[in-house]
């Protein structure tokens, strides 16, 4: 991650971690300095256009268009079944792993179509990490949990330093530095989730996707993760799915509200209702459906 504001090259070409000119998917990304940019200045990381996702004959989301801005926290909220997790999983092509899943429309990642044939999903997932609902550390030591990803990716630097740096960034270092050889499974739920965040950070991603990362944590552990997100956003773009509207209100810069649209023939599909700055969504939303949802008049 370049903190000096210099241009960084991004290359999503299949099977390639080299940075050679002329390959499909190569582009230049201007990274601003190490500060949270104001909303107006922030570049677009994902440009989602007319995105529909199908699971077999069932359309989970319909024609969603929205930009995700760099080094901001974007929250996706909405009732169960509105497609917010489906949408999140599109950002790092996790839906590819579901056989009947099909994506229509485009997601441009720094201008590159994520679903182009030449784009390597493994490289996508390295750049766009994910933290899941339930902490899922590997049944390995704390050290190995963090070191595993970089090793696989052929990391050649000082692994100890990388592990320490990642654990520090995940606000876990002080709690585990004396027991790095202990199993990751011995940690508390909140610590395990921070370990998973450290694991995601270790491969130096650009974006961190979080799918209800606090839903299995107690309120204190939840607040620690929220604090951590506020720190991480100075370096990473974060997209979070949450059922907890107050969490979206507390942590995010922008909020997208999705809902379930039921057609006359009974077909249900997720649609984007409103996308705006979070304070606008929670103070004075433009759409009555958002208003009804955030005030609890719907559901």
């Amino acid at each position, binding site marked *: 991650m370049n903190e000096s504001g210099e241009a960084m090259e991004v290359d999503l070409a299949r099977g390639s971690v080299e940075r050679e000119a002329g390959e499909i998917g190569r582009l230049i990304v201007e990274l601003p300095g190490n500060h949270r940019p104001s909303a107006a200045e922030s570049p677009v990381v994902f440009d989602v256009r007319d995105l529909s996702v199908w699971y077999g004959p069932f359309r989970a989301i319909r024609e969603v268009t929205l930009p995700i801005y760099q080094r901001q926290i974007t929250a996706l909220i909405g009732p169960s079944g509105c497609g917010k997790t489906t949408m999140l999983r599109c950002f790092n092509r996790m839906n590819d792993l579901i056989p009947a899943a099909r994506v229509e429309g485009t997601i441009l990642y720094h201008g590159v179509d994520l679903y182009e044939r030449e784009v390597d999903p493994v490289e996508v997932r390295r750049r766009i990490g994910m933290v899941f609902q339930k902490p899922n550390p590997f049944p390995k030591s704390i050290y190995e949990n963090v070191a595993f990803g970089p090793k696989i990716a052929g990391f050649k630097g000082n692994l100890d330093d990388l592990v320490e740096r990642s654990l520090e960034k995940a606000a876990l270092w002080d709690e585990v530095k004396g027991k790095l050889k202990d199993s990751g499974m011995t940690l508390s739920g909140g610590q395990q989730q921070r370990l998973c965040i450290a694991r995601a950070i270790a491969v130096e991603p650009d974006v961190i996707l979080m799918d209800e990362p606090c839903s299995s944590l107690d309120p204190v552990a939840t607040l620690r993760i929220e604090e951590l997100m506020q720190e991480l956003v100075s370096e990473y773009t974060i997209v979070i799915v949450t059922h907890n509207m*107050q969490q979206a209100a507390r942590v995010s810069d922008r909020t997208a509200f999705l809902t379930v649209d039921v057609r006359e023939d009974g077909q249900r599909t997720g649609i984007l209702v409103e996308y705006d700055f979070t304070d606008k969504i929670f*103070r*004075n939303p433009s759409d009555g459906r958002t208003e009804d949802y*955030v005030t*609890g008049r*719907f*559901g």
Partner: protein
Amino acid sequence: MQTARHRFHEELEWLQTEMVTLADLAERAVSDAFESILHRDAQLADRVIAGDDEVDAHYLEVERRVFDLLARQTPVASDLRLVTAVLHINLHLERVADMGVNIAKIAKVTMGWPSNETVLLHLQEMADVAGTMLRTAIEAFVRRDLKLCRALPRMDDPVDRLNRGMYREVAALASDARMLEWGIHMNVVSRQLERVADHAVDIGEQVAFLLTGVFQEFSDASHPTGEI
């Protein structure tokens, strides 16, 4: 529509009903207080003063329940705007009722003193307009009527004009020391009535905020259009 937070929304309904009740009590306090001046009715003045305990009880209960709602229900969007508007309107109405008490106390002090018909007529006009403005502000709140809110500053103009002219009318009473003393007290009454009208405008501003999400002062005291 199906309501997921039934008890919360019932509480919001209660707050709105309470604003209507409090507005009624506050408006009556001012009009009765002024009646007690007009008709030299000490008993009526006493009732206004004693009635303030009831106003305060409503005011405190609304404060308590708003605080509770904020702590436990974390309202958002129009609910949040409603709760903050209620918090302000509650305070405005309590202050209006206090002004009724102030006028009632002046009524008791000036009970046997000589008076001037012109001053009383002008005060009567101010009291009528201020009362109408208060009712209009609350009607705007109940009906969620932005046009009514925006009519309030214009309604306030004659009240301001009469208040500004009051000191001249009082100065004209200077030849009679007792009358002058009465007049000086009536100047305070004039000021109280002018403040009641200002509170009505402020309530209108809160209702406009509730409806639009944008807070805007209808008039700016630091940049008045008229003379002082």
